[in-house]
């Protein structure tokens, strides 16, 4: 199975109306080349799941400026005023989720869980519309799983089977999203041959990865 594809072929898997997860935290650890290709392609009406909307001129924020999302599920939009503007003018639906709950919702999607109970958000606007449970006298919110049609992630070293090593703080949401989408596309900083990664140091097993782009440096 050859998983290595061109960036042009990779983006054919993202079509109008799909739900897309994008790794990264303020752009650190985001698949920037894939994002640029999607801006170029102009695919639209997407639902975005991402930690934040980065900056107007960087990361997934470029796609916000290009008005490619109909809905955004995220923990933070403060660094991208365009997201706030689209939200306030009701051009884009923005669903704000506490960062830890967002991580668990994505993980639950990947792990086949029906949901998780978290104390985060109890007594705040976050609890609106969510089931509450009291266990041992403590109140929890039921947070439901998130899945996507496609996850776009970034890896530091990727072997041709799709095994991934992340570097530093670029890891963030990437390993979680790799488990929670029907199609997983990893943008590799560096592609290496099978056998070059120690099985102990692999952070995302290649079984999760469908396509690999880049890494030809």
């Amino acid at each position, binding site marked *: 199975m050859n998983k290595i594809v061109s960036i042009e072929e990779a983006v054919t898997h993202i079509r109008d109306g799909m739900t897309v997860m994008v790794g990264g*935290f*303020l752009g*650190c650890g985001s698949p920037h080349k894939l994002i640029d290709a999607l801006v170029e392609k102009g695919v639209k009406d997407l639902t975005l799941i991402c930690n934040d909307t980065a900056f107007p001129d960087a990361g997934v924020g470029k796609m916000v400026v290009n008005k490619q999302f109909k809905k955004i599920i995220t923990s*933070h939009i403060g660094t991208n005023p365009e997201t706030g503007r689209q939200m306030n003018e009701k051009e884009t639906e923005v669903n704000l989720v506490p960062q830890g709950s967002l991580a668990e919702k994505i993980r639950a999607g990947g792990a086949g869980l029906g949901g998780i109970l978290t104390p*985060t958000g*109890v007594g705040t*606007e976050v609890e609106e519309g969510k089931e509450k449970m009291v266990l041992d006298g403590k109140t929890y919110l039921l947070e439901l799983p998130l899945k996507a049609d496609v996850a776009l992630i970034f890896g530091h070293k990727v072997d041709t089977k799709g095994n991934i090593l992340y570097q530093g*703080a670029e*890891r*963030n949401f990437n390993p979680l999203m790799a488990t929670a989408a029907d199609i997983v596309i990893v943008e590799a900083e560096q592609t290496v041959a099978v056998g070059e990664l120690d099985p102990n140091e692999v952070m995302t097993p290649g079984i999760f990865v469908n396509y690999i782009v880049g890494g030809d440096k």
Partner: protein
Amino acid sequence: MDKNEVKIVIAKRVSKEFKDGDVVNLGIGLPTMVANYLSPDIDVILQSENGFVGLGPAAEAGQEKKYIVNAGGQPVTIKSGGAFFDSAMSFTIIRGGHVDATVLGALQVDQEGNLANWKIPGKMVPGMGGAMDLVVGAKKVIVAMEHTAKGAPKILKKCSLPLTAVQQVDLIITEMGVMEITPQGIVLKEIHPEFTVDDIKAATEADIIVAEDLKPMEI
């Protein structure tokens, strides 16, 4: 005190709250300054919610690495003995009670320990980021902020803005003093020598209980 002195006073005082081995998360902005005043005699481990422990000082010019940034996106360093992890582990640490203290700014705090710092309806909605998890999960929640905003009190009887969390704040540290949230209300424990108790009461909407052993602010 000018603006800068105010920040230094607050950051210095916050830095006294920690002991050897504590795991601490410092929020963006003023709380980040606390790192500059930590005693070299103790090992305080800073957690960065974007995915590591062992957060070190800002990266020197020319030494920035795109893959080592803090939760505000600034290039930083990681100390020897630190560790990187994914966001699920980061919030296992935070939500699971493995952070000894979190230091955050606030738009409003009230005498029940409620906190508002993520949304001004109709004006500014940055989102909560990791703040809701930090405030619920950390063993100790320290609000570090200027006592007032353009002269208006930020320490209230009851928060009017959307809450970040209910009854989670333990301590408020401002340039005027140190206040503890107790079941009886807000207790003023330390006061900055430049201010009187009446100054503080005038700058605070919440009721202030003065500790019997009120001390000068330890800086």
